[in-house]
């Protein structure tokens, strides 16, 4: 069966500045990120014939296509579940290009989450969660929903705040190396972490991602075309989406085993179609809306066994030179929170050898989308 393995590649990446507040509207930011990505690839906007984004993205294909000067567009797609859709945008474009539905695809995310409203404050919105069973009781925010799973995880496996701190610290250390990161000049100490204010116990301020204005985009073409582009190709080696049986989204309290989430489902598909395994991953960009998602994802994607994700973070394992350097641009915790798209662009930079926290000789990278919601993931290789 012909597959997607290495059939397509990321040829260009682009992004705006990241800040708590940017003056320009989301549409302008989207156009800046997309035109930067096309320029990076050396591909004319008139050649773009495919788009993919998140259902939560508020700029649309019609506006974007006519603004940047795209040609006739023959494929466009949206993926749901917030940050769970990030890598799936690449997967959809890869499938479209590999099957001849289009030739130049743009994935993008533009979001003024830093200066705009927090989604959970909209009490009228019917979230894709069974809100009648949770919100009246004061489980209002993603931090409360994931905090519930985090407490159970700590109880079952002996994970501690020290482990969550190791995640926050690794991301902050990488952000300190990255001039584009919101936390570039803001080091984090153990004392700062341990004495910070609570958001939803057991999660404190530094267990939560940033609130960011910004936009990112990337350009996907066939592997053959990518080899003629301006930048070295970064191949989409394997792609997967994941919605596990009896999954309930961020309030995953109602199945037999709530601590195995969508990562496990995506991982099974991802590794099934890959030529290499978890031990061969040089660097990982793992979705970090909350620190507690990292131990769960490390287990789900097979870097360690069940219940071992917290212990995995010990001894500097997530730092440069450690067993699995993590979120080398700073991630959602310390670079920018744009629904995980910055993790994609950082994965590309690692495999081009141009990261501000370069893992020497990195040739393979795992990028994941939001864990705790229907998710997606990609394996990149140079």
């Amino acid at each position: 069966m012909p597959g997607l393995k290495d059939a397509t590649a990321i040829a260009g990446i682009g992004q705006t500045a990241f800040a708590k507040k940017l003056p320009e509207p989301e549409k302008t930011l989207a156009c800046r990120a997309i035109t930067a990505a096309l320029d990076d690839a050396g591909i004319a906007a008139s050649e773009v014939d495919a788009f993919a984004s998140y259902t939560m993205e508020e700029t649309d294909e019609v506006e974007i296509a006519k603004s940047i000067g795209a040609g006739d567009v023959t494929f466009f797609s949206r993926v749901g579940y917030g940050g769970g859709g990030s890598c799936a945008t690449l997967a959809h474009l890869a499938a479209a290009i590999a099957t001849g539905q289009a030739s130049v695809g743009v994935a993008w995310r533009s979001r003024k989450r830093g200066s705009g409203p927090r989604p959970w404050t909209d009490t009228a919105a019917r979230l894709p969660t069974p809100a009648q069973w949770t919100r009246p009781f004061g489980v209002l925010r993603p931090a409360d929903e994931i905090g519930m799973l985090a407490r159970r995880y700590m109880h079952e496996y002996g994970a501690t705040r020290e482990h969550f701190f190791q995640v926050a610290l690794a991301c902050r250390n990488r952000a300190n190396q990255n001039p584009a990161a919101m936390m570039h000049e803001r080091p984090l100490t153990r004392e700062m972490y341990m004495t910070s204010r609570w958001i939803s116990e057991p999660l404190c301020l530094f267990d939560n991602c940033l609130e960011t204005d910004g936009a990112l985009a990337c350009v996907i073409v066939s592997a053959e075309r990518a080899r003629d582009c301006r930048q070295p190709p970064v191949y989409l080696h394997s792609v997967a989406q994941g919605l596990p049986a009896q999954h309930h989204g961020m309030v995953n309290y109602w199945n037999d085993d709530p601590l195995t989430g969508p990562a496990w489902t995506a991982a099974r598909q991802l590794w099934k179609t890959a030529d290499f395994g978890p031990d061969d991953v040089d660097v990982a960009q793992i979705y970090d809306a909350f620190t507690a998602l990292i131990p769960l994802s490390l287990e789900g994607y097979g870097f360690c066994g069940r219940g071992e994700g917290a212990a995995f973070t010990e001894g500097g394992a997530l730092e440069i030179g450690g067993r699995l350097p993590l979120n080398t641009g700073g991630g959602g915790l310390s670079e920018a929170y744009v629904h995980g798209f910055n993790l994609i662009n950082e994965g590309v930079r690692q495999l081009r050898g141009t990261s501000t926290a370069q893992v020497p000789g990195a040739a393979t990278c795992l990028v994941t989308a939001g864990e705790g919601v229907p998710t997606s993931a990609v394996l990149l290789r140079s």
Partner: protein
Amino acid sequence: MALLEPVPDDDGAPFWEYAARGELRVQCCVPCGEPRFPPRPCCPHCQSFAAEWRLTSGRGRIWSFVVPHPPLLPGYAELAPYNAVVVELLDAPRIRLVGNVVTGPDAPLNSVEPGRLRIGAAVRVVFSSVVPSGGGLRLPRWRLERA
């Protein structure tokens, strides 16, 4: 600001109707007997659309809990820090309900000191008075068995 009230959907409506009578009932499949929560149109085990609502003992154990702090919606921020729990029912351990541990049926969300909560602690359901909006709903809430 008042606290949020449940907005029942078609599948959830019977749960809230029984709760208004002071009964904690769980949707169960008629042919295969499996309970399911949240309620849904058909059984994920045998695909039957025949369901009944089985009365439970209202006894459970704390499966996990959080203690939210601001920023929160105004009505909740006034009561923070408060507790929110997931309770596993003794009658059906895979059926878990989100709620609050309180000192009495109409006690505030923050009426129990969070330091008293432990995973595994035994709790028993109580039902609040009818919610303020006049929709007739009553909330299941939880009291510690060893208060």
